[in-house]
């Protein structure tokens, strides 16, 4: 899709129009879907304009309901210098229901399981329709540095967390940088 490629070439203004003109392939074509579309487009716009450091996201080709996101480990955490790819899948009743967010890159973290599932309250019961992709990514980014040890998905990581030096070594050992696409 030419428009999307153009978008990656840093021309955010034209892109929403481009994505608007092509209908989502997978989603049911209801009025509802239209409003989800509008919301996602405006989120995309806001995200690109915000320029938050260390987070980014962009719709997959041909489907604005599936996004790929990237977060980088914050400075002064054991995840410093690492970069993780995530997938975000938006339901048809977004934003009233949260998107499904998974790590695509393996992440050694107490609240991320081996399949990349994330245990984060705002993606489940604490979801609010006022959240958006940007706040989700920021939340996940800060979750990296401040895990919730009390309800771990990865118990090994949870146990090792107290020893930050060892943990850092483990992160480095397991880290496979995502292929730069």
């Amino acid at each position, binding site marked *: 899709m030419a428009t999307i490629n153009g978008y990656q070439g840093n021309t955010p203004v034209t892109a929403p129009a481009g994505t608007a003109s092509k209908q989502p392939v997978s989603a049911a074509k209801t009025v509802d879907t239209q*409003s989800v579309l*509008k*919301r996602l*487009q*405006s989120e995309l716009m*806001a995200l690109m*304009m*915000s320029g938050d450091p260390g987070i980014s996201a962009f719709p997959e080709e041909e489907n604005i309901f599936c996004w790929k996101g990237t977060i980088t480990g914050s400075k002064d955490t054991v995840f410093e210098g690492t970069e993780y790819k995530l997938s975000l899948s938006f339901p048809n009743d977004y*934003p*009233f229901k949260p998107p499904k967010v998974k790590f695509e890159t393996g992440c050694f973290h107490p609240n991320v399981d081996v399949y990349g599932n994330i245990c984060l*309250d*705002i993606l489940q019961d*604490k979801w*609010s*329709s*006022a*959240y*958006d992709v940007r*706040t989700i990514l920021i*939340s996940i980014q*800060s979750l990296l540095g*401040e895990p*919730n040890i*009390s*309800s771990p998905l990865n118990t090994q990581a949870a146990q090792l967390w107290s020893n930050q030096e060892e943990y850092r070594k483990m992160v480095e050992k397991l880290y496979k940088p995502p292929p730069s696409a």
Partner: protein
Amino acid sequence: MVSDSIINSSVPSALNSKDFGKKKRANRSAKLKQCKLDARREQWLSQGAGKTKGCEENKDNVRREFPKHSRKTSNEREPSFLEMRGRVEGIGESIHHHESDMELSPANSPTSILLGSTESGTNFSGSSSSSSSSGGCCSGCITEEEEDGDDGCLDDWEAIADALAADDLNQNQNQKQCTELPPQHGEPITQFDPMRDLSNLKPEHPRMVQRTAANTGAWRPDDVFRPQTLPNLSKLPSFPATDRKFSKRGVPWACNNAVNAPSSCPICCEDLDFTDTKFFPCLCGFRLCLFCHKRIIEDDGRCPGCRKPYEHEPLEVETSVHGGSLTFRLSRSCSMNTRS
């Protein structure tokens, strides 16, 4: 990006309520929130600086009771006074020269001073309900109108200001009905302090001085120095309501939201229509369109901004707007609820 910024401000509060044991994080987001709120408030205040300056100054002055005192004590304020005085004098001379010529007799001076004081009195009751920020505008307008009672010199812009004042007066009356006089009596009086100073300085022109000072009030709100923005004053009616909310609730950022009202719904990103812009569903100040509100009511019924359930009907805020629109809006939200 207004809607975006609003999301910003509301989201941290939501993060805050996480009971996941992430205390650190909660602290941080609380701090973040505080910072943002402060920043926005400052921004807002500085935007309104032109409007509010007078009020703030005046509070101080009132405390000190005597303008002369205040002039000595608050040096940094003096320039603005002086500036204003200069401007005021100029205008006064150009517009009301004939008037001052006619009524220049020394016998006039006591009356006019008296007049000044009564005016500040009325003013005070009029605009007190509008408390904090844009109090100046209300008081100014009212003054203007009353002023017209005693001298019939009309210019175009005065006519506009009058219409406006009438509008404001209505609202103020409405407000008076529901609100007791809040503590901020001082402001309007203070507005007249510079004038008093002037009359002290130039006892031979008291009438003129008084008149001009009142004039300043009329377009002071937008100002800092131009009556040319008068057309903008049509926006003013929205301010008293805002203020009211502010004074009643003490939720400064709700006020902010109202002022920088989002142009589109943060949930569905559709433009807010007229009804939506008058729709204040939650005390936290988070606003959204009626459709999204309905949908949320049907679902989990919690405000996206603060996650508290939407229990009560959207209320007082609208009540304050106009008597007529109140019933309309309530009935509408009711019908939406029953439909669900």
